[in-house]
């Protein structure tokens, strides 16, 4: 039996009460929203918080509102189901609707929130195992051990950023608001991530991710492709988020390409994005861009399928995503 370790449960009714409780209880406390990532991790003793602060009742974390010309605010407590079904997001930020719909299973999307997906714990074959399994192999540095079992000579942890929505929100240039008793800060979502499997987020223990802001979508098209073994349940072993804005003459005005599940944080393919800007999207150019983007993926042997396969599939998935957006535009005529 995999039982949860004992904890005290606190149920604040407002965001300010929640931040106060997190500050008072200190680092022994963790916030819980949908619980779909935290509770399995607690059952495996990857986390053993003495206190859980429930975010479910906080109205400040709810709601999806806005429009494509001014941008959209998403409460971090909205479920992945409500995001994948929302007409505004489906029509104007399709990559986000696709990514939310690609997370795990219907049951987990009905409970899991977008805030929880953004702050998903990084994952690794040597870490996402029961306490019994990890004990038998001597533990890894991310929890209870001292070395990285994927790269034993490495001073750092290589656990993988495995959230589907994170690379999409980077490609869409989203901003996030974090709130604590010390104040609040609104930052570009890129600044939420560290390239470190052990400490993947700049979020402090007393901060709550309250909301996500998407910029205006006019003129942008976006998509998300996910590689995994099965059509549901599985975390991504590659996620490709692409957003493009075309000029009236057909050239690429702006392009964002972000890769998920290839490192401890979402990886922007800057060189590839720069190569696209101002250019006509010819098949030769798109192939070159896909190859450039794939250079940013350096998979290690700590996720499903083989490194070689994951590496080979990266340029193919980037190319497919680019083709989808370019063809959609040409198919529907100039806008």
């Amino acid at each position, binding site marked *: *039996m*995999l*039982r*949860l*370790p*004992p*904890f*005290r*449960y606190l*149920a604040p009714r407002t965001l300010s009460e929640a931040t106060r409780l997190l500050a008072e209880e200190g680092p022994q406390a963790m916030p819980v929203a949908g*619980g*779909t990532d935290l*509770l*399995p991790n607690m*059952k*495996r003793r990857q986390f053993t918080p003495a206190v*859980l602060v*429930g975010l*479910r009742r906080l109205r400040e974390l709810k709601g999806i509102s806005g429009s494509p010309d001014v941008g959209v605010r998403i409460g971090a407590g909205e479920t992945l189901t409500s995001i994948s079904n929302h007409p505004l997001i489906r029509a104007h930020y399709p990559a986000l609707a696709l990514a939310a719909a690609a997370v*795990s*299973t*219907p*049951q*987990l999307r*009905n*409970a899991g929130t977008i805030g929880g997906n953004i702050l998903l714990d990084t994952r690794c074959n040597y870490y996402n195992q029961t306490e019994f399994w990890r004990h038998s192999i001597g533990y890894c540095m991310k929890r209870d051990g001292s070395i990285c079992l994927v790269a034993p000579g490495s001073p750092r942890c290589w656990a993988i950023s495995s959230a589907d929505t994170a690379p999409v929100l980077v490609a869409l240039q989203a901003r996030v608001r974090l709130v604590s008793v010390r104040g609040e800060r609104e930052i570009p979502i890129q600044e939420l991530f560290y390239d470190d499997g052990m400490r993947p987020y700049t979020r402090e223990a007393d901060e709550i991710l309250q909301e996500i802001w998407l910029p205006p979508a006019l003129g942008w098209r976006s998509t998300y492709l996910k590689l995994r073994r099965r*059509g*549901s*349940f599985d975390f991504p072993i590659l996620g490709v988020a692409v957003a493009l804005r075309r000029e009236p003459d057909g050239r690429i005005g702006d392009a964002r390409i972000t890769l998920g599940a290839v490192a401890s944080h979402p990886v922007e393919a800057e060189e590839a994005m720069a190569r696209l800007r101002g250019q006509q999207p010819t098949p030769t150019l798109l192939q070159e861009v896909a190859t450039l983007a794939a250079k940013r993926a350096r998979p290690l042997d700590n996720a499903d399928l083989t490194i070689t396969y994951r590496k080979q599939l990266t340029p193919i998935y980037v190319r497919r995503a680019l083709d989808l957006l370019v063809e959609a535009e040409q198919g529907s005529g100039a806008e």
Partner: protein
Amino acid sequence: MRELITLRINGERYEVAVLPHRTLLEVLREDLGLTGTKHGCELGECGACTVLLDGVPVLSCLTLPLEVQDCEITTIEGLEEQGRLHPLQETFAELGAAQCGYCTPGMLLSAVALLRQNPHPTREEIKQALSGNLCRCTGYTKIYEAVEAAAERLSAARQGERQPNAALQP
């Protein structure tokens, strides 16, 4: 410390003293004797423990009872009405959609939620709705057929109900 809470399950109210770290699955099976909800992987990777919270399928192994005191909880025990099986239960039995039967309660609850929301689902929509429920006997085809057959029965029953009313119209 145990907390005394009230859970609404299948239309009945249950008072239970729970420890905060007990999951809804554990409370249903071990404290309330509602063992129809199955205990599978306990990590959100199988769907055997699916229950409905206000009609929406979620996993009871990843649900804290303290957080669902405001919800109407439906388990497999709550599907029959006045001693009559739900049409989905009938078609699952008739078409052999249950082999070992372990995934069946979770499958049924996911399917009930689907048919309430979408009375005439396509095969693809059924696959999507059941994509969080694993069957390791690999009996998916019969499960899809049973959901389709139940959708037809429910729709025929609804038309049957409508008919007498229609006859009253001038």
